[in-house]
């Protein structure tokens, strides 16, 4: 299916959601001035003219849901967004009935970081396995696969897990271990090298909280970083402060992160956020055999327990030798 056809179908489904299902707002994308897609809330069926979707849609639209709390909402959802929605439903943030999901089979989205200096050029659209950029009056045809986010390369659920409408098309196949590779690489470092690596990441961070705002799971009305009683860390972006931010963020997202990669795309400073999150995902899976966002009704991994969870506590069930999972 061509992009033009997808756009037509999207608009048709969006109209249907407005007219037949009575949604009050549709969360979708439109072209930004640079041709890359930007998120947009559509408030009427007539406004849908600019609605579109392509491989430059790097925002997880579920992050915009809290803005429209209480409203009946339509939302475009590739696999990762649909999984975010499942978690938000499970955590009581939204009600399934007030949600109309337009599912999109996802071929993956382009990584701003991999574009390097090209990220400021003009995005003309995708064309099969390639996408087009205009830079210095030249049109570049680049292979999509080389520029996809690591998250998309490693994605095992590119098709929506919940939806009310489904757009025809094919999802990306053949998940690689791009993300796992990043974790592996860090794991192969020595302890001090790992520390240096994350301190370097912390040094880049300016604490603009773009990662937090871009994340659908970070819906707390007030975040621990802003608490004044107690004050967990100072407002100054020093390395230890930023490290606390990065680690606690990772911990709060362990067993909840769907690896959409929106935080990494949002970060203006190029902090390696996904290595931490991918590590958390792997760890939660290894310890508790849990993958977040696949089933409505499920409890979050760290919001539940099992009597036979592995026990590494001093004086506990497992001895050193039995520590099989590490």
């Amino acid at each position: 299916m061509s992009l033009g056809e997808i756009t037509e179908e999207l608009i048709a489904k969006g109209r249907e959601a407005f007219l037949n299902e009575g949604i009050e707002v549709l969360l979708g994308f439109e072209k930004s001035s640079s041709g890359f897609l930007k998120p947009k809330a559509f408030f009427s069926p007539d406004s849908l003219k600019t609605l579109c979707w392509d491989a430059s849609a790097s925002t997880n639209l579920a992050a915009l849901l809290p803005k429209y709390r209480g409203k009946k909402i339509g939302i475009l959802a590739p696999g990762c967004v649909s999984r975010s929605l499942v978690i938000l439903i499970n955590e009581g943030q939204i009600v399934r009935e007030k949600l109309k999901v337009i599912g999109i089979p996802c071929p993956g989205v382009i990584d701003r970081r991999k574009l390097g200096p090209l990220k400021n050029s003009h995005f003309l659209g995708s064309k099969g396995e390639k996408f087009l950029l205009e830079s210095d009056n030249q049109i570049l045809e680049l292979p999509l696969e080389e520029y996809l986010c690591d998250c998309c390369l490693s994605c095992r659920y590119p098709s929506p897990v919940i939806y009310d409408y489904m757009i025809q098309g094919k999802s990306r196949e053949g998940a690689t271990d791009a993300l796992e590779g990043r974790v592996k690489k860090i794991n192969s470092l020595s302890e001090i090298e790992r520390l240096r690596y994350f301190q370097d990441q912390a040094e880049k961070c300016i604490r603009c909280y773009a990662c937090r705002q871009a994340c659908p799971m970070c819906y707390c009305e007030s975040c621990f970083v802003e608490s004044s009683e107690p004050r967990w860390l100072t407002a100054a972006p020093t390395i230890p402060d930023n490290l606390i931010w990065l680690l606690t963020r990772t911990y709060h997202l362990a067993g909840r992160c769907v690896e959409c990669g929106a935080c990494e795309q949002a970060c203006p400073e190029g902090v390696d956020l996904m290595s931490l999150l991918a590590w958390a995902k792997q760890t939660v899976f290894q310890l508790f055999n849990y993958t977040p966002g696949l089933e409505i009704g499920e409890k979050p991994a760290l919001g539940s327990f099992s009597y036979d969870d592995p026990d590494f506590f001093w004086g506990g069930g497992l001895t050193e030798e039995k520590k099989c999972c590490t």
Partner: protein
Amino acid sequence: MENFEPKIIAFLCNWCSYAGADLAGVSRFQYPANVRVIRVPCSGRVNPLFVLKALYEGADGVLVSGCHPGDCHYQSGNYYARRRLEVFKKLLEFSGISPARFKMAWISASEGAQFAQLIREFTEEVKKAGPNQEIIREKSDLEEFLNESR
């Protein structure tokens, strides 16, 4: 380094581990004096931020101890703690913070001897790991001012 006496913060649950520590004292079991105890209602109450904050403020090691599985005063608090702190401990390891700095344990109210043993072991481990330089806050300017203003 030879004379390094680590600062250790221990979050002990009110119902078992705190009583266990108390028993260790009453029974006159010897253990190093490096531990400062903070009593918490339950090991499930321990937010990993407590651990990070303790390290950030200058602790060299942090211990969390609660009732053995099955013995929680609140039925299941320690089961939650077991899951969460396990992930958190591994996160510290992954990020390059010495794993010796964070320990989790089960100590019942009757395990005074075990508590003393645990503290001896943990203190030794933290000593080996050396002073916390991983995630401690920068405070040399404040220390300088503190000395000046004395």
